[in-house]
C-alpha cells in the first residue's frame, strides 16, 4: 500500500497518548490502527467506551475538548478490512484536542444482532444529534439517549438508508404513490405535540403559545424549522427541526465513482462552491498518494478564498437584512457579482463550478486571469469601509445584536462550534494556521478574533476575514507559481493525455481510468478544512474500488444549529432572528 503522509503534525504526540491508553485500558482497547491521515484509531469494547471517553475528556495527558463527529460504517460487504476486528456496524467517534492540536478516532464494533451503544450525550451535549443521525441512518440504538427519534427523515420512514441493503436509487424502489389513507397517516405523524418536543403547555402564571417558525419563513435561510414556545414574545424554548433539505449526499457518494462525486460536493455548502471540493479531493489524493504541484495548491487557495469572500458577503448582507436593514444586501450582492464574474472566467461556472480534480484542477488559468482579480482587490477595501460605517457602526444594529446570543469558549467546544463562531468568543483557532493544508503555511494572514461571542462579534469576525482573504488572494496573484495544473501521478483524474498514446498498454490504461475512474487503494482518511462556516471534514473509506465505500461529510452548520436553544432562551422573537442570522448556516450543509 502506497501511503505518503503529509501531515505529521501530531504523530509523536499522539503516539505517547496511544501508549498511555493501551496501558491504562488494556481490557478495553482491542486494537490500534493508523491510516494515511495519521490519526490514531483505537478499537474499543463497547462497555469500555464511556470510561475511555471520560478519561480522554477529563484526565488524559492530552485532553480532548471537542466531540468532532460521530458516525457509523456498515461493514457487512466491505472487502480489504486489513486486520480490523470483526464487525457488522462500526460506530466511530472523532475527538479533537485544541490544547495539543491533534485528533483521535475511537471505533466500536457491533454485530447485526445487537446494535446497541451506550449514549455519550451526557458527556458531550452535541452527541445528541449525531447519535440521532446514526440511529436514523443505520438503525443503531443508543441506550439512554433522551430523544432517539428520526432527525433527517420523516417520522414515518421505513428502513435506515445508509445501510448497504437500502436502495440507493428511486428505480430500485416501488414507484411512490400517496393514497388518501396514507396521506391521513402522514399528516397525523406531523401533528405538533408540545410534549414530544420537551415543552410544557403552561406554567403557573401563563399559558404558552407555540409558534411554528419554518420550514418556510423569510429568515430561516432555506428550509429550516424551529418550534418556539413563547410567553408573550419571550422565548421559553426554541427547538430546531432539520432534515427538510436532506438529499442523501453520503449515500450518493457510495454509488458514484471517486471522480464523479466531485460536483455533488459543491452543493453541500452551496455558498462555498469549490471550497467543498477541496477536502474531498485532498482526501482522495492522500489515499492515492498524489502530491499536487505548487501551482495547483495556489490556484486552489485562491479560488477557495474567493468563495470565502462571496459566502461572507452574502452572510453580511443577509445579517443586516435580518435585523431590518434593507440596503446593504444589495451592495454586497453587487460585489459578490464581481467575485462570481471572476470565478466564472476561470472555472466556467459561478456558484457550483465543481472545478477541482483528483490531482489538480480542471484547466489551467486563462490568459489575463489576474486583471479582474487585481481590480477586485483594489475595489473591495473602500467598499468594506463603507459597509463598516453603514452596518457595523450603526447604533440601532449594535443595540439589536450586542449581548444577544452570546456564549463562551467552553460552551462552544461542548457544542462543537468551529469557525467564526468559535473565534468570536476569543479562541484563536483557524485550521489554516493550526494545521495548514494546500500550502496555507506559505501565506501571511491574521486570524481575527473577538471577545464577547455575541451576534455582533460573529459578524465582526467575518468582516475582518473578508479582508484577510483579500490579503491571501493578493499573495496568490503576486506569486502564482508556474508549472503544470495537474499532477503526473497515474491516479490523477482525468489522466494526462500525453501519457496515453504511447502504446496499447497506455491507451488501455487511459481508457479505463477515464471510463471507470481511478481505483483508490484501500485506506481510510479524514481531511478537514477551514470552510466558510467552520470546520468541514470528509471521512472517506476506500475498500479498493472505483468508488467510495463510505463517505462521511461532517459539516459545521449541523453542529451550530444544535446550539440554538441554548443561546436563544429568554430572548425575544426578533433576537432569535438575529441569532440565526449570525450563525451563518446553509441548510444543504446541515442536512446534506
Amino acid at each position, binding site marked *: 500500500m502506497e501511503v505518503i503522509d503529509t501531515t505529521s503534525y501530531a504523530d509523536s504526540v499522539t503516539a505517547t497518548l496511544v501508549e498511555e491508553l493501551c496501558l491504562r485500558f488494556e481490557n478495553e482497547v482491542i486494537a490500534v490502527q493508523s491510516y494515511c491521515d495519521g490519526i490514531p484509531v483505537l478499537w474499543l469494547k463497547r462497555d469500555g467506551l464511556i470510561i475511555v471517553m471520560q478519561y480522554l475528556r477529563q484526565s488524559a495527558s492530552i485532553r480532548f475538548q471537542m466531540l468532532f463527529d460521530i458516525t457509523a460504517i456498515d461493514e457487512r460487504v466491505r472487502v480489504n478490512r486489513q486486520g480490523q476486528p470483526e464487525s457488522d456496524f462500526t460506530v466511530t467517534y472523532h475527538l479533537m484536542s485544541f490544547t495539543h492540536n491533534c485528533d483521535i478516532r475511537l471505533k466500536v464494533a457491533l454485530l447485526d444482532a445487537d446494535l446497541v451503544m451506550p449514549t455519550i450525550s451526557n458527556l458531550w451535549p452535541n452527541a445528541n444529534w449525531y447519535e440521532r443521525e446514526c440511529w436514523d441512518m443505520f438503525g443503531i440504538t443508543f441506550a439512554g439517549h433522551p430523544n432517539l427519534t428520526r432527525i433527517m427523515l420523516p417520522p414515518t420512514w421505513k428502513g435506515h438508508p445508509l445501510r448497504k441493503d437500502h436502495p440507493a436509487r428511486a428505480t430500485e424502489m416501488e414507484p411512490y404513490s400517496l393514497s388518501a389513507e396514507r396521506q391521513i397517516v402522514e399528516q397525523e405523524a406531523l401533528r405538533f405535540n408540545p410534549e414530544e418536543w420537551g415543552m410544557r403547555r403552561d406554567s403557573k402564571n401563563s399559558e404558552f*403559545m407555540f*409558534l*411554528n417558525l419554518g420550514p418556510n*419563513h*423569510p*429568515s430561516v435561510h432555506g428550509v429550516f424549522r424551529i418550534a418556539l414556545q413563547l410567553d408573550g*414574545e419571550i422565548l421559553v424554548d426554541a427547538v430546531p427541526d432539520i432534515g427538510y433539505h436532506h438529499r442523501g449526499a453520503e449515500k450518493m457518494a457510495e454509488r458514484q465513482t471517486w471522480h464523479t462525486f466531485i460536483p455533488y460536493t459543491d452543493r453541500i455548502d452551496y455558498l462555498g462552491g469549490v471550497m467543498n471540493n477541496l477536502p474531498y479531493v485532498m482526501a482522495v489524493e492522500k489515499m492515492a498518494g498524489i502530491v499536487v504541484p505548487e501551482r495547483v495548491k495556489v490556484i486552489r487557495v485562491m479560488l477557495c478564498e474567493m468563495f470565502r469572500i462571496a459566502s461572507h458577503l452574502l452572510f453580511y448582507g443577509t445579517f*443586516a*437584512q*435580518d*435585523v*431590518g*436593514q*434593507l*440596503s446593504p444586501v*444589495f*451592495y454586497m450582492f*453587487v460585489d459578490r457579482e464581481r467575485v462570481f464574474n471572476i470565478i466564472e472566467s476561470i472555472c466556467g461556472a459561478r456558484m457550483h463550478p465543481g472545478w477541482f480534480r483528483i490531482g489538480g484542477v480542471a484547466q489551467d488559468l486563462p490568459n489575463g486571469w489576474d486583471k479582474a482579480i487585481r481590480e477586485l482587490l483594489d475595489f473591495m477595501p473602500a467598499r468594506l469601509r463603507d459597509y463598516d460605517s453603514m452596518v457595523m457602526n*450603526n447604533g*440601532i*444594529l449594535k*443595540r*439589536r445584536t450586542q449581548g444577544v446570543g452570546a456564549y463562551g469558549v467552553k460552551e462552544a467546544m461542548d457544542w462543537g462550534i468551529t469557525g467564526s463562531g468559535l473565534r468570536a468568543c476569543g479562541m484563536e483557532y483557524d485550521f489554516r494556521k493550526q494545521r495548514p493544508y494546500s500550502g496555507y503555511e506559505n501565506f501571511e494572514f491574521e486570524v481575527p478574533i473577538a471577545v464577547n461571542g455575541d451576534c455582533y462579534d460573529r459578524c465582526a469576525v467575518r468582516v475582518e476575514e473578508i479582508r484577510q482573504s483579500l490579503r491571501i488572494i493578493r499573495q496568490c496573484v503576486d506569486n502564482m507559481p508556474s508549472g503544470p495544473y495537474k499532477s503526473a501521478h497515474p491516479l490523477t483524474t482525468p489522466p494526462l493525455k500525453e501519457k496515453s498514446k504511447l502504446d496499447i498498454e497506455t491507451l488501455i490504461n487511459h481508457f479505463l481510468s477515464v471510463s471507470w475512474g481511478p481505483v483508490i487503494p484501500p485506506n481510510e482518511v479524514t481531511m478537514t478544512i477551514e470552510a466558510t462556516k467552520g470546520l468541514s471534514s470528509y471521512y472517506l473509506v476506500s475498500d479498493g474500488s472505483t468508488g467510495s465505500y463510505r463517505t462521511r461529510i461532517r459539516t459545521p452548520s449541523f453542529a451550530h444549529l444544535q446550539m440554538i436553544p441554548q443561546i436563544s432562551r429568554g430572548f*425575544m*422573537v*426578533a*433576537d432569535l*432572528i438575529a441569532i440565526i442570522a449570525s450563525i451563518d448556516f446553509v441548510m444543504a450543509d446541515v442536512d446534506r
Partner: protein
Amino acid sequence: MVWEVGSPLSIGAILFTVIIVAAMLIWVERRLLGLWQERLGPNRVGPFGLLQVVADMIKIFAKEDWVPPFADKFSFVLAPPIIMFVILMSFTVIPFAPGVGVIDSDVGVLFVLAMASLGAYSVMLGGLASNNKYALLGSLRAAAQMVSYEVFMGISLLGVVALTGSFNLRDIVIAQTDGWFIIPQFIGFLIFMIAGIAESHRLPFDIPEAEQEIVAGYHTEYSGMKFGMFFVGEYLGVLLISSLLVVLFFGGWLGPAFLPPIVWFVLKTSFFIAFFILLRAAIPRPRYDQLMTYGWLFLLPLSLLNLMITGAFVLWQEGGM
C-alpha cells in the same frame, strides 16, 4: 365658482389625485430604492416602468378573492377598507392650496388625530380576524406601537396649535406667513415625524409587519385586492404624513410667487416622501421593546417639555403685549 373648498369638482379631483398618487408611490419607492441600492427597479412596463402600477393593479384585481376558512369572515373583510377609509377621510381637512380642499374645519388637527386612531382598528382587526399566530403577534405589536405613538404625536402638534391659537389647518398655514414653524417648533417637528413613521408603520418602525420576524405580520393571510388596500393604505399614510409635515411645519402652500401655491405644496410634500423612502433604505429596525422604551422614556418627556416651553413662550408674549 367651481374651484372652491368643498365643491364637487374639488372633492372629486382631490380624491382621484390622492389615490393615483398613492398608487404611483409604489413605483416611485421601488425606483428610488433601486437608485439608492445600485440596481434598476421596475423599468420594463411602459416608459421608465411607469405602467408597472397598472400591471400590478391588473394582477391584484384578477386574483382570487380568498378568505381563509379559519378566519373570522366579517372582520377579515372589514379590516382593509377601514385603513383606506380613515386615511382618505383625513385628507378632507388638508389645505392643499388657497381654495383647494374638501372642508375647512375648525377642528382639523383633532380630526386628523382622531382618524389616525381609528386606523389602529384596521390593523388590529385584520390581525385578530386572520386567526394566524403571526398575524396575532403583528396586531399585538401594532396595537401597542400605534397607541403609544399617538400620544406623542398629539402632544408634539400642540406646540403648533398654541402658536397659532387655532386647530384649523388653514389658519395654521396662514400663521406661517412670517416664518415657518420648523424654526420655533423644531423638536415638535422631529417628534411628529418619528411618530408619523410609526403610525404608518414603515421601516424602521415596521415592527407590526416585520418581514424577517413575523412574515408579514397582521396581513400575512391577506391576498388580492384586500392586501392591495393595506398596501395602498400604507402609501396613503406616507402621503398624509408628508402633507401634514408640510402644512404644520413648512408653511403649506406658501412660497415665492414665481410658482403657484399648489406647486409649492406638491414640491414640499414630494421632498418628505423621498425622505421617508430614504429612511427606509438606510436604517435597521429596532426591537419591539426598544421602540416602546424609546417612545415612553425619551419622546414623551421631550414632547411634554416642548409643549411647556412653547406654552410659557406664548403666555410671556401675550403678557408682554
